[in-house]
């Protein structure tokens, strides 16, 4: 049992134009970091393209066609001011969503403890019928829907620590109590959604943070809102919308998380997963636009995933402890 790394060359060929912050160099920086010795145990897999069936669990048929029809044969096409596609973007988007589904399959078949999808384009702004905010298909939501439809999971949670609110994931989940969406994000910036009052059918938990919030605010949000919501929900699988743009050096927002915060948060999520769902976690890359901060943060996130206590080991230890306790109680009485 190990940690899987899903990534595909098409994701690096998704060209968004000169100077665009959501650029191929992001993946290059990440893969360089994950190519070093501490990550030798990662098992790298190529994801297949997502099927129409997988995509349309979240998106309308017309959205899927609309996006794929707009992929130009050459140069660029701007779906909106910042959401740009080019000849390889279609395959990249399909592989990105396919990675989330393949990772879900592998983790639920117990081929691995957990998985990280180093993919782009990101997904969490993509709504059921709208591509926006660098996102074409909602990779994390598609993975979550896949887990429920194919593996029959009753409850799937997505935790989103990207600095921007995942309006797309919220829109996909807000009427379905089988999903939980929990998000920390900077208040009042793009896309403008994610207020606390947006609660879906009680299955959306938004924790907006003010500009310049940092480590202490993240911990407060976790203990006050996120962890209790996750534990109440008792998910059978946790997906992470792993954006690293809340980092203090990121140019697109003003939160002040650091690498240690990402490590801490990852370990906290893994601890909840160990208690609720045998440690099953699938993490999917979203934003993060300072290349060195992104690479360092992803590295520490993935390292934490790799060091997740094995579900079987944990169960064994728990069993031993309980037996000891029972014996002690017996002796005491």
């Amino acid at each position, binding site marked *: 049992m190990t940690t899987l790394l899903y990534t595909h060359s098409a994701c690096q060929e998704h060209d968004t*134009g*000169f100077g665009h912050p959501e650029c191929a160099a992001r993946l290059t920086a990440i893969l360089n970091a994950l190519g070093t010795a501490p990550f030798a145990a990662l098992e790298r897999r190529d994801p297949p393209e997502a099927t129409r069936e997988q995509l349309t669990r979240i998106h309308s048929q017309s959205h899927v066609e609309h996006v794929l*029809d707009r992929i130009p044969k050459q*140069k*660029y096409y701007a779906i909106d001011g910042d959401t740009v596609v080019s000849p390889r973007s279609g395959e990249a988007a399909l592989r990105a969503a396919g990675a989330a589904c393949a990772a879900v399959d592998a983790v639920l078949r117990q081929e691995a403890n957990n998985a990280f999808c180093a993919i782009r384009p990101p997904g969490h702004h993509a709504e059921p019928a709208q591509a926006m905010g660098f996102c074409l298909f909602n990779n994390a939501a598609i993975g979550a829907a896949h887990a429920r439809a194919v593996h029959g999971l009753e409850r799937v949670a997505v935790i989103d620590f990207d600095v921007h609110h995942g309006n797309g994931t919220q829109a996909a989940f807000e009427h379905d109590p089988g999903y939980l969406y929990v998000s920390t994000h900077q208040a009042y910036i793009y896309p403008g959604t994610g207020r606390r009052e947006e609660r879906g059918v009680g299955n959306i938990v938004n924790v907006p943070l003010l500009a310049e919030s940092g480590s202490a605010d993240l911990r407060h949000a976790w203990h006050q809102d996120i962890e209790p919501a996750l534990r109440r929900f008792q998910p059978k699988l946790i997906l992470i919308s792993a954006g690293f743009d809340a980092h203090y050096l990121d*140019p*697109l927002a003003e939160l002040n998380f650091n690498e240690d915060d990402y490590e801490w948060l990852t370990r906290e999520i893994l601890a909840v997963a160990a208690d609720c769902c045998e440690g099953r976690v699938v993490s999917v890359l979203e934003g993060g*636009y300072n290349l060195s901060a992104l690479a360092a943060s992803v590295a520490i996130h993935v390292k934490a995933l790799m060091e997740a206590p094995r579900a079987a080991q944990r169960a064994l230890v728990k069993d031993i402890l309980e037996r000891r306790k029972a014996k002690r109680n017996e002796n005491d009485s």
Partner: protein
Amino acid sequence: MYEFLHYQIRDVMTVDPIAISPKAKLREAEELFETHDFNGVPVVDSQRYLLGMLTKFDLLNAFRFDAHTLVPHYDDIMEQTVETVMTREPITVAPQLPLSRLLQKLVEIRTKSLPVVEEGQRLVGIISRQDVLKALRRATTKREVLTHEDPAP
């Protein structure tokens, strides 16, 4: 505009700016403002560790009515030392902060310029509104980024 996102403070700040000693007289500070058109000048010790900022507002502040004098006297006040009126513990920024984030900060706190310090508070630069405006222009006039193309048939 994307180019601007790559800029950090150290790319556009004034490096090793003119600074003033805490023991200097306000008269000297006033002369600095006069000759250089500064909004504010960093106050540093002999090792160039930042002790404070002296802004034009700090100078004016020395002339406000108080309980001790009926009329503030220019020559007396100009003989005071910088450390008596400077802003202590000023807001500082790090050289690697993205310019896009500095911009938000400047607007938020409505400050005209900020001292740039390394770890340990050693002064390495100063960054102003004008530097940011210039960088915005430079970042956007260099090269047009996007060509809007019609979708492929």
